[in-house]
């Protein structure tokens, strides 16, 4: 099977599976399962945003949750002030994108190296977390929306049809919207990466100096990639704020950022399907282990239900043992087994 055929088969399979989940999900599953799948889909969009920035752009952003949280908060605040979700939705994408553009300009045009980029994104995430966390008093408000500090913002109104306040998205509607978004984002990113722009971005990841000598400006391409990734993360944040009708500062937190990185590294950098599978798999795993062992359980079951412990161990082991992630490693194995046959034929 040549690479091109494999690619097309992969696309078709992804499309069929995606559409099957989209149309059959609510028929197959109970409502609570549908709700769980909805949040998996939203988080998978978030995973894709880092898959683009890190897996293809080679920019390790420790603060992807900052954009996610910014999107969620922007949506919530705008929604309380405006009431109609058309503009809040647009803002929840535009504000994180603008923030990322500003931050990225600062980073990429300052030619700050990888490690420092990690430090800066980490620091920015902490600044946002600390600032929002301390806004519990009634004096902190934007328009009529109170920021709520560590209590978060409850009761966020749901999305509605553009310019039609009465047609609100219900729980099943949220499922269709999230799953549909994931499918659109996945294929959109595939198209983006197959375009001239995407190829240059990957070229820069592989060898920045060479791309520069060929006449491309890596700073501009990295900035664009970073901004697109932040916009996607902001959109995921908007969906997340809808899903639970609640946002709190923990979505800015480092634990959230670590999760996103774990999804991508487990699934595989340099693929899009890997981070989606990694995201769904890890979330399912932590939910299953947590349900098995409520917080107070002692002994081994208690340790397994301890999400940071398990996630941390997964992250360290993957970096040491499977640094490429699942999907690329499986693909390597597959090509190792198929190659001898080609030779003998």
């Amino acid at each position, binding site marked *: 099977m040549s690479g091109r055929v494999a690619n097309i088969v992969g696309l078709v399979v992804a499309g069929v599976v995606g559409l099957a989940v989209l149309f059959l999900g609510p028929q197959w599953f109970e409502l609570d399962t549908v709700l769980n799948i909805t949040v998996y889909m939203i988080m998978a969009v978030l995973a894709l945003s880092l898959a683009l920035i890190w897996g293809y752009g080679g920019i*390790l952003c420790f603060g992807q949750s900052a954009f996610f949280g910014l999107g969620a908060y922007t949506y919530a605040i705008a929604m309380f002030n405006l009431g109609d979700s058309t503009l809040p939705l647009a803002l929840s994408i535009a504000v994180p994108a603008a923030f990322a553009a500003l931050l990225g300009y*600062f980073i990429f045009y*300052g*030619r*700050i*190296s*990888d*490690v*420092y980029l*990690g*430090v*800066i994104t*980490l*620091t*920015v995430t*902490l*600044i946002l977390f*600390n*600032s929002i*966390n*301390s806004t519990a008093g009634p004096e902190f408000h934007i328009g009529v929306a109170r920021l709520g500090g560590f209590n978060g913002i409850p009761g966020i109104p749901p999305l509605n049809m553009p310019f039609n306040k009465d047609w609100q998205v219900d729980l099943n509607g949220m499922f269709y919207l999230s799953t549909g978004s994931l499918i659109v984002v996945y294929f959109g990113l595939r198209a983006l990466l197959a375009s001239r722009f995407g190829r240059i971005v990957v070229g820069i990841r592989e060898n920045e100096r060479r791309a520069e000598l060929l006449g491309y400006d890596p700073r501009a391409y990295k900035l664009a990639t970073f901004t697109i990734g932040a916009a996607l993360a902001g959109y995921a944040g908007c969906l997340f704020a809808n899903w639970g009708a609640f946002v709190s500062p923990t979505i800015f937190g*480092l*634990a959230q950022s*670590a999760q996103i*990185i*774990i999804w991508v*590294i487990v699934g595989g950098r340099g693929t899009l399907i890997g981070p989606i599978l990694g995201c769904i798999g890890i979330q399912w795993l932590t939910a299953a282990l947590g349900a098995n062992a409520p917080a107070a359980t002692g002994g081994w079951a*208690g*340790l397994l239900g*301890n*999400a*940071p*412990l*398990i*996630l*941390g*161990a*997964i*992250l*360290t*082991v*993957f*970096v*040491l043992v499977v*640094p490429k992630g699942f999907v690329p490693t499986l693909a390597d194995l597959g090509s190792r087994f198929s190659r001898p046959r080609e030779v003998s034929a």
Partner: protein
Amino acid sequence: MDLIALLAFQVLYAIASLALISIGLAVIFGMMKVINLAHGEFLMLGGYAAIEANQRGINIWIAMLVVAPIVVGLIGMIVERAIIRWLYGRIVDTMLATWGLSLFLVGLTTAIFGNTTVGLSAPLGSFEIGRYRASEYLAFVIVLALAELLAVLAALRYTRLGLIARGTMQNGAMAAALGVNPSRVYSVTFGVGAALTGLAGGVLAPVSGVFPTIGVAYVAKSFITVIGGGAAIVAGTASASTLFGAINQLATYATTPVFGEVALLAAAIVLIRVLPQGVTGRFFRRSL
């Protein structure tokens, strides 16, 4: 006047505590170019080591100044053997692996000690600055931080071990050809960095208390102090913590502690943009 003296004391303490929590990371980063994101958890473990030892009847000074560094130093050497060793030269992978370790340690300590704050009552009393009273223990922390920086400097410059360590970091192959075992040097260096971190964790335990997620509060601060300081270990830590500590404390005084922290982080971002090589990349370049 009294107020200014008190404020100066607080600024000094802010600087000293930053230097204290950063020097271990600076040794590890400066010598080995390894960024240990589990640094905050090493501090946390130092705190728990001191508290546990003290509860078992060990004198509080010995618990803080001896037990904590030894325990964390040993943990550091184990971590170097098990994780860091495989990732030399892959700086981003090291960051990720140690971040995983950091989460793992948070989970583990939560399972063992529970998700509550435990404290250690600070020894020593208080002294008067004019009309105000200040804690003698904080004064002790300031003196200790200064002594620690000088000790690291002296060890690097005047001891055989420091010479070997610096030589190995500069050119491992050459050091090996001259009969040094580089892997042992790395292991010891990482252990020393971890021990310094454990010491800081133990000493700060009476001030801030200890809980499993306390590392998050420390890691970014020490991280940016080290990065802001640049390549020179002692001069970099001293200059960056002076700068950031002063900014933090003055902003805290003018507004709230939260905003003080935000001001510190924001100042760090600006500093990295202006001086990408850190303070010692531009000034005091020949220092250690």
